[in-house]
């Protein structure tokens, strides 16, 4: 039995497969979220944010487990792109929104590790880290080398989730609070920090040949060719990614123009 989805090279079958590693990771995520979100509710976090966080846990589970997990690992670049959108762009803001108050309090209470937390969540550093992860995990040689192994596929999935949490932290948690990181700057940050993934999606859309050997040489998927699949993957990254990013930028804009900036910000985070 495999503990994590990886490219097997075997023809696709609709017989369900079981991945204990996925269940374990989702269980750890769910327990951590449960503990933090309970504290968040006690600190005044909204019911909507709480349920949004549970939706994020459910989405993470769905894209990592059968059937999307194994499809993404060894058959369809489009499923892999869907994983990226969910793990890096959809789940992290939902998870952070429901837990931002306890997370902010945790950062304030950190000892020596606070300096590291401040550095990693510094918007420029966070943006660069996310883009390094996005680029490195889409380089064809890296994908082709990592996806056939369970450890490699696990590494990519975890990096996307962690990269997403780092990207969204400065916007969602705002701790430590930075006076220069106003709402317009946050909108600009989100736009600029997600430009690279848009570029990756464009490359996938315009290439004439499949980029990833793992999907090109996989047992055939009856509905579409590897190149069509790659174009679909580019479309998923481009459109779904843009919908998430511009949707949140739009919400931020209207909150800012309506004068509600900072209303829901975590209480008394320390300044850097």
């Amino acid at each position, binding site marked *: 039995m495999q503990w994590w989805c990886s490219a097997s*090279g*075997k*023809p696709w079958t609709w017989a369900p497969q079981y991945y204990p590693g996925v269940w374990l990771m989702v269980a750890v995520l769910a327990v951590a979220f449960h503990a933090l979100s309970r504290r968040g509710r006690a600190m005044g976090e909204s019911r909507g944010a709480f349920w949004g966080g549970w939706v994020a846990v459910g989405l993470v589970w769905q894209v990592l487990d059968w059937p999307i997990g194994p499809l993404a690992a060894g058959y369809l670049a489009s499923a892999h792109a869907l994983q990226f959108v969910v793990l890096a762009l959809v789940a992290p803001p939902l998870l952070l929104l429901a837990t931002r108050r306890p997370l902010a309090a945790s950062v304030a209470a950190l000892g020596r590790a606070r300096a590291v937390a401040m550095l990693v969540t510094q918007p420029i550093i966070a943006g660069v880290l996310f883009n390094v992860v996005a680029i490195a995990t889409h380089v064809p040689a890296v994908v082709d080398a990592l996806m056939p192994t369970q450890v490699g596929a696990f590494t990519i999935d975890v990096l996307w989730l962690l990269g997403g949490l780092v990207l969204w932290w400065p916007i969602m948690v705002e701790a430590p609070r930075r006076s220069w990181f106003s709402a317009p700057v946050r909108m600009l940050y989100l736009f600029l920090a997600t430009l690279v993934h848009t570029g990756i999606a464009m490359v996938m859309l315009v290439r*004439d*040949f*499949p980029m990833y*050997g793992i999907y*090109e*040489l*996989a*047992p*055939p998927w009856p509905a579409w*060719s590897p*190149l069509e699949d790659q174009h679909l993957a580019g479309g998923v990254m481009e459109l779904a990614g843009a919908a998430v990013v511009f949707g949140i930028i739009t919400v931020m804009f209207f909150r800012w123009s309506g004068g509600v900036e900072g209303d829901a910000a975590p209480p008394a985070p320390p300044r850097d």
Partner: protein
Amino acid sequence: MLPTRFLAPCLAAVLLAACAAPVPRHGVPIEPALPRPSFTLTDTRGVPFEFSRETRGLLTFLFFGYTNCPDVCPVHVANVAAVLRKLPFEDQRKARFVFVTADPARDSLPQLRKWLDQFDTSFIGLRGDEVEVTRVMSAVGMPPAIRGAVGPDGRYEVGHSAAVLVFTADDSAHVLYPFGTRQLDWAEDIPRLLRIRPQTED
């Protein structure tokens, strides 16, 4: 300034390189080159197909596989088809893809045609009895196909060479392409293979 005694050999080397036959960048070289074999099998119209006569002077991809193959055959054939479709029309006319079934017991001529048509309607499908096909495989240095164990559902797999042999206009195969050859590899090599000409033309 370079001394003239160095310039002359350099110039000669450049000229030689320009005149030399283009070398494919991918695949496995065949040395010495394999001459285009002569054999006759039945094509999907039910007509005898003389391989040597019908493909002489053309860039010819020869592949042994079977239509129930779950992985290697459809991927290999689809990759060649995808690249051939992108070639200029004149180059496409100079190329033939010949698929010989390694599983004549299950691959009827209509089944063969239907399977090939999903990749390219111009691809040629050939069928013979097991002895004939094994003889052809042997003539091109391929191991014979081996039928695997029959499963409870009556299905079985066929073990066969997963390499595509490519015969060029000089009626020789200089290279074979194993499974794992990417579309980009084919796209780089096919124009080079098309430029290989019979030596009498040089």
